[in-house]
């Protein structure tokens, strides 16, 4: 996007979307983007930041200066997010960059990840916390291997909302036919993946069509602009409010003369709604009690639900420590040492091998695990399962069976992204080497 185009971008739209002092009741949406510079991803992000007044003149001036010095034909907005020296020198995006913008309705956190297959682990990382994922395709090229791979990773990580942006519509004469063919093909593919809510938007990131306001160049498109969709997509119901899961993070016991006999279990609600008086069960012990109070530093609250960080007090004195989990007696996670999981391997130095021993971190619980089996390695482009595989290398994904030293208090990942996910850590290097999504726990 050239500076002139950016400078002329929607003065009126900015007035609408600027996050002013009134912006206090807005909520938070985290979204991940994946793609390469060729897809116009950086232009799109630059456009969103610029049109919401989140791009600053000194940032833009710095990027323009560097672009000019490198002889780029246009201001290379990728330089905004490529923050590391190595990235700028090599002209590539290595890592996840977090960007922020806000409108009066919502605050947005963008996890901007590189799209190439050698950065699968970065995309998995970005998608792990995302409410929504934005996939870009070039209208001239249609769906490519990379688009399918991104859609698959989003479904693997259970990102609840998917948006396909068909970009560069200006270069296909704003053709409804081109758009519909891509939209239909992607919709059919997403259905096979059991992908959740899908929205398709035809855009031109460079020209600003369907980004903040509806495009006049595509009157045949009746859906919302991208920002309109991002601002209004309903995310509250994505949270699991049914299964009460409260991993105990820390036990608060003041050593004080003014507060005596206080014992509170601090943590962040993973799912469900906790209320005073509720009958609860503590795992792994299985003891039951009642919630005496749900507290915050600002006083007691009637209910706690995700993502609140609270302190729970129980009516009975039970021995509870970090790593235990509070749930309801009739709705408990598995207490399991045999874990079937999809694993994305993230270490370049050594592959995951059958027989390998690792440390794991699952909610607030740490354990050790041994790899008992590798059922298959998945080709994330073709989704072909290679059952002859005997290891997983960097960026490879496969279905793995593990046995843990202590029971995990676990749910299936598809039902609960917090109690269903864990990380694998190399005990010698302390590096995080794998991300696991539980398929079955027994």
């Amino acid at each position, binding site marked *: 996007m050239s500076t002139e185009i950016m400078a002329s971008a929607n003065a009126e739209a900015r007035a609408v979307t600027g996050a002013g002092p009134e912006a206090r009741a807005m909520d938070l949406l985290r979204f991940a983007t994946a793609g390469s510079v060729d897809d116009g991803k950086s232009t799109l992000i630059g456009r969103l930041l610029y049109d919401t007044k989140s791009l600053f003149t000194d940032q833009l001036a710095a990027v323009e200066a560097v672009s000019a010095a490198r002889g780029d034909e246009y201001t290379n907005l990728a330089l905004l997010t490529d923050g590391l020296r190595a990235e700028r020198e090599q002209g590539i995006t290595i890592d996840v960059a977090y960007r922020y913008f*806000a409108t009066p309705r919502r*605050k947005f956190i963008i996890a901007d990840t590189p799209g190439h297959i050698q950065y699968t682990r970065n995309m998995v990382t970005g998608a792990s916390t995302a409410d929504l994922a934005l996939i870009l395709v070039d209208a001239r090229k249609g769906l490519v291997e990379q688009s399918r791979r991104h859609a698959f990773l989003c479904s693997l990580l259970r990102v609840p909302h998917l948006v396909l942006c068909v970009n560069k519509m200006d270069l296909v004469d704003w053709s409804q036919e081109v758009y519909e063919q891509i939209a239909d093909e992607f919709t059919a593919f997403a259905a096979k993946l059991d992908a959740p809510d899908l929205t398709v938007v035809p855009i031109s990131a460079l020209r600003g069509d369907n980004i903040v306001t509806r495009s006049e160049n595509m009157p045949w498109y009746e859906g919302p602009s991208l920002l309109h969709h991002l601002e209004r997509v309903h995310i509250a119901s994505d949270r699991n409010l049914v299964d009460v899961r409260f991993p105990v993070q820390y036990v608060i016991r003041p050593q004080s003369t003014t507060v005596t006999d206080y014992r509170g279990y601090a943590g*962040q609600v993973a799912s469900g709604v906790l209320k005073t008086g509720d009958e609860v069960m503590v795992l792994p012990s299985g003891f039951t009690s009642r919630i005496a109070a749900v507290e915050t530093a600002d006083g007691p609250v009637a209910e706690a*639900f995700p993502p609140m960080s609270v302190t729970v007090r129980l009516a009975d004195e039970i021995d509870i420590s970090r790593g235990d989990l509070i749930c309801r007696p009739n709705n408990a996670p598995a207490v399991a040492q045999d874990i079937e999981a999809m694993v994305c391997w*993230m270490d370049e130095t050594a592959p995951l091998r059958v027989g390998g021993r690792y440390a794991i971190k699952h909610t607030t619980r740490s354990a050790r695990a041994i790899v008992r089996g590798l059922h298959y390695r998945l080709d994330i482009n073709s989704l072909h399962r290679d059952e002859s595989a005997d290891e997983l290398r960097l960026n490879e994904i496969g279905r793995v069976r593990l046995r843990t030293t202590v029971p995990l208090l676990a749910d299936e990942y598809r039902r609960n992204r917090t109690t269903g996910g864990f990380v694998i850590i190399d005990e010698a290097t302390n590096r995080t080497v794998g991300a696991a999504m539980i398929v079955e726990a027994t």
Partner: protein
Amino acid sequence: MTTPAAYQVSHLDALEAESIFVMREVVAEMERPVLLFSGGKDSIVMLRLAQKAFAPANIPFPVMHVDTGHNFPEVLEYRDQRVAELGLQLVVASVSEALASGLVRESADGMRNRIQTPVLLDAVEKHRFDALFGGARRDEEKARAKERVFSFRDEFGQWDPKNQRPELWSLYNGRHHPGESIRVFPLSNWTELDIWHYIARERIPLPSIYYAHEREVIERDGMFYAVNEFFRPRAGEERFKAQVRYRTVGDASCTAAVRSDADTVEKVIEEVAATRITERGATRGDDRVSEAAMEDRKREGYF
């Protein structure tokens, strides 16, 4: 605030919940945490979050001030008052003492930003701190935009941007060998505007220099520097009085003020929402050295 009927939380509540979770993880898993407290607005917000995370117990770790010796008196006064109110243990890592003992030497330009690093690392080693809470935010600077919430540092305090641990879901990996440490950034996902909205909502008092006041300044590179014992005007630089406030509070020899009439928190929020220049771009002489100035300092162990 929260609307229990719809089971939705505001963005400030979501950010607060995340920061509290991060702080509790650190206290649960690390041996000797410390909170870096400069008296700046971000560390002040961080201290409030620490109070909330462990209430009704006291904050279970000390705070450390890396004191360059170039302080705004209002900020030092605020620091001491806050520490006393909360009954905290304060560790001062003094650059002036380190200069006297020969640990570091004054840099040619007189700025002490860069020589803070060895002083910080020395204090970390002496007190055997293994987790350091810092108030850095990812929106501040593009190297910070790529840093993890739990940022691993080797035994020399160095950050290796190409060798960072993947950070998934809310599972933070704080494992380290003796001598290594973790910098923890609970405010990673907050923006300058979020910080100000939170200060307003929580009615958090700040050092007075964050609000508009009259001060004798000079103008250099489009920034306004206060004339004081640490900052000497160069020949030809004219002193004049102006209505200013500080957007960031750092070393008094290299932190500049901005022209402002915002003398209340509400007016500051309006100003921050309307500004078109980043806070570091508007106020920090030290970031202008090169395109990668911050990344280079962080590699050396800067926070």
